[in-house]
């Protein structure tokens, strides 16, 4: 056993209101520099929709992630041979049009315009060329546009549906949509790290955050092709690639990352998971429909004495183990089993998990009162507007049983809570429903509490960073003991 700790995440999609506050918080801190205008380390997509960059889930085109070739894991985009043959040109790069041409407006015109019959307007200016431009697309161009004939219909996840189901999904009054906020998944088996010819990308040993060393990056841009989630970006100004750093300077000082901190819907949870790094390859080789279970299997019980002993042997601090025991992510993923990894079939083993949305809330208005359409406690998911197949394509590696389990459990908890607080549902029926959904009243209360009444400290359990230990791996902390005490960067001409 080779136990590592990883700061991982849960996004609760039922709570996301699509306000993009997270994206703006991130942008203001990290990507408001020259060369990063088009980057959105955090973005929020509308599903069904094509996302950012457009149709990023289409790996036939973008060639992201891993594939199984004769039982071996291979990168889809590159290999040693392809690195040589494509040495002058990286063929799998998204174009600027697939992201979008970043723009601003010429606000000055609003103030300087001469008096006239019309209102002055601020014309859009490209932030790349500085010229006037026609805006054709943006990073959330299809925001709230589910059902649109171009963007939503081209969602590649809809390919699993039958023609009839597709038609239903796009029929007026049967439209459905949900938001899909995305950041770097800080995968356990990151294809971006594997693809880098310079070895500039690395997964931090102490907390599993995936970073790009800005000194070693040589602008190969292999990571951009290799990341199936398209979450590494090339900075055209510095000539280096950049990506979400999970706000590690904040995490190291005990604060939640900016997008987590600012989340209005409180959909984001952050906590430590312990996993067995020896099993990464074996796990990633499972067939698509077994991947969710296999990945869950890798995540270890932080209360197990054997696990704790092995973790300590690997240098994981007591405070980290304690954080793992209190981790909300562990609860969602392992204890309750209601958080699922996105597109696990890319085999990068993402460490950001999603609680899938329970769409839609079936209710109708009659006079002044709103009542549930479904008389049963569980809506029939087979007949629900959101086809389970569609969600399974996104969150289950195509395995519908995971989705059915999660949705059933969530709806049983809703029924149970309604029985508790409103009382118009019979408690016995509600408890029966809980049992059928593999849940107990105690567990239901815990899920309810962490979902609806969660405080800051419930959502973010951040362990002490122990940077001093991480630094010890790289250099001797006593290296400069008994040497000049006024800085080491510019050594004095004589004496040390």
């Amino acid at each position, binding site marked *: 056993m080779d136990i590592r700790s990883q700061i991982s995440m849960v996004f609760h999609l039922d709570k996301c209101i699509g306000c993009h506050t997270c994206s703006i918080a991130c942008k203001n801190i990290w990507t408001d520099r020259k060369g990063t205008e088009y980057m959105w380390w955090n973005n929020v997509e509308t599903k069904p929709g*094509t996302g950012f960059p*457009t*149709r990023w889930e*289409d790996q036939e085109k973008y*060639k992201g992630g891993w594939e199984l070739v004769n039982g071996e894991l291979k990168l889809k985009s590159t290999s040693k041979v392809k690195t040589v043959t494509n040495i002058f040109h990286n*063929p*799998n790069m998204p*174009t600027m*049009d*697939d992201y979008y041409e970043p723009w601003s407006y010429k606000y000055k015109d609003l103030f300087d315009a001469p008096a006239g019959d019309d209102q002055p307007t601020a014309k859009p200016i490209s932030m790349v060329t500085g010229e006037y431009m026609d805006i054709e697309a943006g990073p959330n161009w299809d925001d709230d546009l589910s059902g649109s004939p171009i963007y939503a219909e081209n969602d590649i996840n809809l390919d699993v549906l039958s023609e009839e189901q597709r038609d239903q999904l796009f029929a007026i009054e049967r439209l459905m949509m949900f938001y899909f906020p995305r950041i770097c998944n800080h995968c356990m088996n990151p294809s971006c790290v594997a693809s880098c010819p310079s070895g500039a990308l690395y997964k931090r040993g102490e907390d599993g955050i995936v970073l790009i060393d800005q000194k070693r990056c040589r602008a190969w841009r292999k990571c951009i092709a290799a990341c199936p989630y398209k979450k590494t970006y090339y900075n055209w100004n510095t000539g280096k690639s950049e990506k979400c750093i999970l706000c590690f300077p904040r995490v190291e000082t005990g604060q939640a990352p900016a997008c987590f901190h600012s989340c209005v819907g409180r959909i984001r949870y952050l906590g430590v998971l312990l996993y067995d790094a020896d099993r990464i390859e074996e796990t990633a080789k499972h067939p698509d429909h077994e991947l969710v279970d296999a990945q869950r299997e890798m995540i270890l019980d932080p209360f197990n004495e054997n696990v704790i002993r092995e973790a300590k042997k690997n240098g994981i601090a007591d405070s980290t183990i304690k954080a793992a025991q209190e981790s909300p992510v562990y609860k969602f993923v392992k204890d309750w089993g209601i958080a699922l990894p996105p597109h696990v079939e890319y085999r990068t083993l993402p460490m950001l998990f999603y609680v899938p949305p329970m769409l839609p809330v079936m209710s109708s208005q009659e006079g002044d009162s709103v009542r549930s359409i479904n008389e049963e406690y569980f809506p029939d998911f087979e007949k629900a507007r959101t086809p389970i197949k569609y969600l399974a394509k996104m969150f289950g590696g195509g395995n519908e049983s995971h989705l059915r389990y999660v949705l059933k459990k969530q709806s049983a908890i809703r029924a149970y809570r309604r029985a508790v607080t409103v009382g118009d549902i019979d408690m016995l029926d509600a408890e029966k429903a809980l049992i059928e959904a593999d849940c107990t009243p105690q567990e239901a209360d815990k899920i309810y509490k962490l979902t609806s009444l969660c405080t800051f400290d419930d959502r973010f359990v951040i362990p002490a960073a122990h940077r001093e230990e991480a630094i010890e791996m790289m250099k001797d902390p006593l290296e400069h003991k008994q040497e000049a005490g006024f800085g080491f960067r510019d050594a004095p001409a004589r004496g040390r």
Partner: protein
Amino acid sequence: MKKTYTFIIIAWTTLSSSILGQDVEGFYKQNCASCHTIGGGRLTGPDLKNIHLRKDEDWIKKFIANPQAVINSGDAYARELLSESRGVVMPKVGGLTPFIIQSLVDFIIDESSKEKSKYGSSAIADRPLTPGDIVKGRALFLGVTKLKNNGPTCIGCHSVAGEGLLGGGLLGPDLTNVYGRLGGKKPLAAWLASPGSETMGPIYQKYPIDEEEVLPLVAFFKDKTLSNVTEAGVHDFNFIIIGFVGLAIVLVLFDLFWGNRLRSIRRKMVEGKI
């Protein structure tokens, strides 16, 4: 420090002169014999027998040191020599010092006084040239047959009109009419036996052209001169055509390798092509 330099300079001059003292004959053989005889009539250059009676020693030394400079100075005799050799200027020999020049002059005067000098004729066999020689010479010139002593192939530096797909090298002069220019079989053979120019000399001293190879080459050059072709221009039209064909092939290969790269997805999607 100063003492060391002085020592090195003294050692160098005495050492080199002593070597030359023994081997002025060797130096003559390597650098002069390809164009000159002593009492055997002219090759490319004039017969050197009794040269000291034709011109004074100072003039001879000046000429050996830098023939082109003497010609350029407008010296009447030097111009006469130039026209006699059909415009072939005597190359400036590398490694000449006043001492060596003096030794050479002494050597020539010495040989002139002999009844029959060793250098009275060229050493090349006097058999007639055959058509087979032309074919063999052409192969040698093009490098199809390698030179026996591993010397570099002629076409590497020289060109001859109509030979070689891309023409020959441009470093040395065009050899299309070299047979006529140097004045026929004997001078040309003598030159090939030990080329004396600053560029060719050092190379072919180490890897000389074999006696067996000289005559075929002469035959090849003679054939070229007699066929009356004009010299090949530097801007060979073939070269441009081949350049374009090569470019086209490279572009096609590029397309085969990288043609299926990722192009815009969004625009195609919006235009309904996905």
